């Protein structure tokens, strides 16, 4: 029995040491990628190509989810608010929920599972099929040519996707509450506009999405680049990308919210 406990503790220790090791490797990789980003910035065409794959192809899922989230928020908000006779505040509820929290967080989660996993799988497969080694042998740095453009494309796409998510969501809330239920249109917009502050709500929301974009794509490219070059390795790395970046998004969201909205009603 004690032997088992000792083994268990050893296992935990091993895993902790292993994760610290990985974190160190990830940080070094991240620095290396930033240092080599200059070359890929000069060839913006590569980034445009990747924006197409990460941003444009994520549009449909983002827009559709945003619409439905907004519609559900409108419906639920209306149900609750009308008990207090303040159903005209439903616009405020929808807009603040979306702009402050749901827009950045849900868009980032969707982005992680749609684009993040694709980035990891692609880079992992390029490694497994020796494409990265071949590039290295052709005297082309794979971090500058393959990794950095994907990273920057993700960082650029993320705020746009989240903004689209939020605005489509507000429109969804408008559809349900104003068009279907019949909340007064004027008070819907005016209450929303008086409650949503540009500096505190929208700018902070955009800052959040930028942070999430960096986190998700950095995790995705690292997992891909670090994946064991086998089929099992790539699929494991893809799963880890989705899990790690989802946890990172939620954790970072808490930290950022605590900083940004502290002491405000």
């Amino acid at each position, binding site marked *: 029995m004690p032997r088992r406990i000792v083994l268990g503790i050893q296992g935990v220790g091993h895993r902790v040491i292993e994760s610290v090791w990985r974190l160190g490797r990830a940080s070094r990789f991240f620095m290396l990628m930033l240092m080599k980003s200059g070359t890929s910035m000069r060839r913006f065409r590569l980034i445009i190509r990747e924006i197409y794959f990460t941003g444009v192809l994520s549009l449909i899922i983002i827009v559709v989810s945003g619409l439905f989230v907004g519609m559900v928020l409108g419906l639920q908000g209306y149900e609750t608010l009308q008990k207090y006779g303040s159903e005209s505040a439903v616009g405020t509820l929808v807009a603040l929920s979306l702009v402050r929290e749901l827009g950045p967080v849900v868009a980032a989660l969707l982005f992680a599972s749609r684009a993040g996993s694709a980035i990891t799988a692609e880079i992992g497969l390029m490694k497994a099929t020796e494409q990265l080694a071949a590039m290295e042998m052709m005297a082309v740095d794979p971090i500058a040519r393959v990794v950095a453009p994907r990273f920057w494309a993700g960082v650029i796409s993320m*705020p*746009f996707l989240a903004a689209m998510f*939020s*605005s489509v969501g507000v429109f969804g809330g408008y559809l349900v509450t104003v068009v279907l239920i019949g909340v007064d249109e004027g008070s819907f917009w005016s209450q929303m*506009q008086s409650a*949503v502050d*540009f500096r505190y709500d*929208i700018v902070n*929301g955009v800052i959040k999405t930028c942070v999430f974009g960096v986190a998700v794509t950095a995790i995705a490219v690292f997992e891909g680049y670090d994946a064991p070059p086998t089929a099992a390795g790539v699929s494991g790395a893809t799963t880890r990308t989705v899990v790690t970046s989802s946890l990172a998004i939620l954790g970072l969201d808490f930290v950022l919210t605590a900083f940004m909205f502290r002491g405000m*009603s």
Partner: protein
Amino acid sequence: MQRTTMDLWVGLFVVAGIGALLVLALKVGNMGTYSAAQSYTLMGSFENIGGLKPRAPVKSAGVVVGRVLDIQFNPETFDAVVTMSIDTRYQFPKDTFASILTSGLLGEQYIGLAAGGDEVMLKGGDKIMKTNSAIVLEEMIGRFLFNKASESKDGNN
């Protein structure tokens, strides 16, 4: 061939993203009506601010003219110093009256400015001399009950 269609899509994507940001800023948010860039600050001391919070609106005649920036406690005079940022479009006379009001019975608290008749206008950093504290509901109810009680006592005698 394929490249140009890809560029087109990316271009559309960026345009849609910027469009969404603009919608958020102008239609959802209040950037159209209130800009923090051009404003000046005023201060006021209140005996009791009740539930006033930073970022609460400052209204005059019901129109939002600015926001509460900061609330500090002054340990010498034992009152609350409220800093407000006011839109430069709106100027107020020196003898303006600032009071902490509540919108509705349970709504949020805000600062109401009632303009006076002075010729001289308040400048950035000035202090509003005439202030009126927040009405604290418990105190008001307490006072009301006390008055009632004393009234009925008077009536009995």
